Each structure stands twice: as C-alpha cells, then as structure tokens.
C-alpha cells in the first residue's frame, strides 16, 4: 500500500498509517480539540473576571503614563517587533541562500516528471483551461516584433529545406488560375516603372535570339494589311513636302517651259515630224539613185 518515489534513482518507501493508528490519531485530535475549547472558555472567563483588575494593573492610577506597565510592555513589544523584523530579514537571507541549494538537492533526488505523471491528471487540467481566451490574451504582434527573424532565418538551412520539398507535387497542387484571378494586374502595372525596366532590357540580345524569318513566315500579311488604317498612315505622310522635293530635283518648271516653248502645239510637232520623215525619204531616194549604201547618219534612226 505504498507508492514508490525515486530519490537519486533509488526507490524510497513512503510509510502509510494503519487503521488503528488512524483511530488513535483521531482520538488524540478529539481530546486536543476539547482541551483547546475548554481552555479558550476558561481564558475568556478569567479575562472577563479579571479585566478591571488587569486594566488597573496595566494602567495604575497616580503613576505617570510612561511608567505604566502597558506602556512599558508596548515599548518592549515595539522593540521586540523591530527585533523580529530584523530576525525575519536575516532568516530570509539565510533561506534565500539555503533553500535553492536544498531544493536542488531534493529535486536532484526526486523524478518530478514521473511524480507529476503519476499523480496529476494533466488531461483534466488542460480541459479546464480556456485556450481560446488565453490565445486572445496573447499579444502576438508584440511577440512577433520581439523575434529576431533575421537571425532565425540566417540559421535555417534553406537549401536543405528546399531540397526536401517536392516542388513538382507542390506546383501540381497549386490552382494558378485562381491565383491569377485574385491578382489586381492593373494595380501591379500601375506600380511598374516601365521606363526603368525598358532601360535595363538588352533588346539587341533579345532580337538576336528571335528567328525573324520564322516570325515573318508565319505572318499573315493580308490580315495585317486588312487591319491597317492606311488612310491614317497616308494622312500622316507629308505628300506635299515629298512632291516639293521631287520637283526641286527634276526642275519640273524648266521642263514645262521647255516643252511649252518649243512644242506649244501639236501642229508644230506634226510639222517637225513630217519634215524629219520627208528628210529621210529624200535621203533614201538619193542614196538609191547614187547606188550608195545608206549612211548611218540619219537614215539609221528608228522609223
């Protein structure tokens, strides 16, 4: 009928009272109680009876107050109180010094965990705790603010952690469409410094990598042209300026002057061509009459 405790690894037997001993103890306690009650009654009675006398003794008449026994006792009590306080202080100092050492010695000899496991119903205790209220009382922000995350992260072997993760499985489980639906792309784009991004981009390298021939082969030029707003393009072209430059180069006014000055009318042109043809005809006749091979001069000209 005795539980076993372990002290420094050695089991120690705890003594248990038997029924008879318990009866004797109860009787003793009953006698003590009656005795104490009788004593209290006796003391109260005596005190009531002797109260005037006691009062006279404590405060005798015709005696200066500072010599009254009550005053003397009070002074002694005050002195004793101070001594008691001093004694308590010294005792605390001694206890502070000794208790930890004694407790350490005791705890060293007792397996407290085992003791708690054997004697305490932890499940019941936990069931009484209102964890929700406890968590509600915790200031998580303050707790997180106290945590030195940098140091914690620095200690983590991220490579090792990542190598353990089966990324394929993780990605397979991710619902990318749902994520994309949740993203406010407009807000993201508004925050983007496009100029800086473009300035950093190496377009030459990008263009070098592109197979422009393949791209051009895939291009549906007809569709592109159908979509193009050619009218707008033509509106943007400075046709008047281009014509002006061309006219500057070819000197059209001079040509117009030449043509209108020398060949103002079809009549003049016809007379001239008739004259040329008549010249050729006459030359052919003369050449034939003189048995002369036609000279290359004018007669070789295209008819």
């Amino acid at each position, binding site marked *: 009928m005795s539980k076993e405790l372990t002290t420094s690894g050695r089991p120690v037997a705890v003594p248990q009272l038997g029924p008879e001993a318990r009866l004797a103890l109860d009787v003793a306690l009953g006698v003590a109680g009656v005795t104490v009650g009788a004593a209290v009654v006796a003391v109260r009675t005596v005190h009531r009876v002797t109260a005037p006398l006691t009062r006279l003794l404590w405060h005798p008449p015709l005696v200066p107050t500072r010599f009254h026994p009550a005053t003397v006792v009070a002074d002694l009590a005050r002195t004793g109180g101070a001594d008691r306080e001093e004694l308590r202080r010294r005792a605390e100092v001694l206890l502070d010094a000794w208790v930890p050492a004694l407790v350490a010695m005791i705890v060293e000899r007792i397996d407290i965990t085992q003791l708690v496991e054997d004697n305490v119903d932890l499940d019941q205790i936990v069931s009484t705790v209102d964890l929700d209220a406890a968590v509600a009382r915790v200031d998580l922000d303050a707790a997180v603010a106290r945590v030195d995350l940098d140091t914690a992260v620095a200690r983590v072997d991220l490579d090792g952690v990542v190598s353990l993760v089966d990324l394929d499985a993780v990605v397979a489980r991710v619902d990318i469409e749902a994520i994309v639906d949740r993203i406010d792309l407009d807000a993201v784009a508004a925050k983007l410094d496009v100029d800086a991004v473009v300035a950093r981009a190496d377009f030459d390298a990008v263009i070098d990598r592109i197979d422009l021939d393949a791209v051009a082969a895939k291009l549906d030029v007809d569709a592109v042209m159908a979509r193009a707003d050619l009218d707008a393009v033509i509106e943007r072209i400075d046709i008047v300026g281009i014509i002006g430059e061309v006219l500057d*180069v*070819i*000197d*059209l006014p*001079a*040509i117009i*002057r*030449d*043509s209108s*000055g*020398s*060949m103002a009318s079809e009549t*003049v*042109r016809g*007379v*001239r*061509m008739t*004259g*040329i043809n*008549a*010249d*050729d005809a*006459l*030359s052919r006749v*003369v050449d034939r009459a*003189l048995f*002369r091979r036609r*000279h*290359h*001069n*004018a007669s*070789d*000209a*295209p008819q």
Partner: protein
Amino acid sequence: MTGAEISPVPREARPYQGHSAGLVTRIVANTIDALVVGVIVGAIYLGLVSFKFLLDPLSFVWPSGNFLVSLTTTLFIATAYLALGWWLLGRSYGDHVMGLRVVDRRGRRLGPLRALLRAAFCVFFPIGLFWCVVSPERRSVQDVVLWTRVVYDWVARPGASQRKTLLGEAPMALGPAATSEPRGPVPEHETDAHTRSRYRREDLEESPDPSER
C-alpha cells in the same frame, strides 16, 4: 548620267535628236526665215513711210521703191537676222519652228564671226543648201566650208533637258550646247555619257565629207 532625266522631246522624235537635218526641213525653216525677213523689211518700209507721212502729210506720196536698194537692204537685214540668231541663240525663228540648231563641228554654238560668215554665205549663195541632198553627212556647201552642221534639236534652250538630274549632277561639261550636239545612231537605251560622247566624236571627225577632200 543616270538616264533618269525627263525630256520634253516626244518619244518618236528622240532618236533623231542631234542628227543632221535634211533638205526638206531646212528649206521649210529657210522659207519661214524668209517670211520673217520679209515682215521685218515690210515693217521697216512701213515705218519709214509713216515717218515721212508724219513729217509732211500734205505733200505725201508713196515712195517709189528702188529695187536695188530694197534688195540690198533685204539681203543685209537677212544676213544680220540669221547671224544674230545663230550666234546668240544657235537658231533662227525658222530653225526654232522646225526644231533645228546650227552648231560647229564640236556641237557648240557658233561664234559671231562664223555666224556672220555663214549667214552671208547662205543669203548670197542659197543654192549651196542643196548640197546636203547628196552629202552623206547632210552638209550644205556652207556647212562644208565653215565646218558647221544643222541638227535636229527640239529642246528650246541649250542643255535645258539635262541641266539637272535626279541625282543632282551636272550633265556633261561639253559646253552650253551639250544637248544639241550632233549624235550618232545611239540606241535609245544607251544613255551613258561616255558612250554618247564617243559617238559624237566619231560622227564628226571620222566621217569625211567627200566635198572636203
């Protein structure tokens, strides 16, 4: 030269440009010139008559023309008219109407002395024109003697059609009558300046006129 120039000459007439002109065209041109000279002489006559009428209207009678004086005056005016036209413009009005130009052996406009000599020669010896019928080079006696030529050139001003090309280059540094130089039978597509220049030289220097020998 790039061949990109725009010529005011009609397409059918372009092959003849620079070729020596024949008798018919030249006669027509000379006839027009004769009419012009007649108009000038008539205008001068009318001017003198009007002047005389203004001086003494009451005793005015039509002056009886002295044939010799009139003929001499007419020939002199014709000579001056042709000489000035060939020297200053390279062509008379008759040449202009018929699209002709009078040039020297290098295709340049005539100088004043040669223009005057040729004009006098033509006025006082018009029959010499007919030598161009039998001349293989279509040269009249005046042309043979004075080393000149009459060529088809429908462009009004010398070098007008080649003054500027699309590349902005000067056409050819062959003188003011560059485009009116006599040209050989150059195919129309052969527009290289060097080739054309070579044809001209051959046409002028290596084609002897029988009458010059």
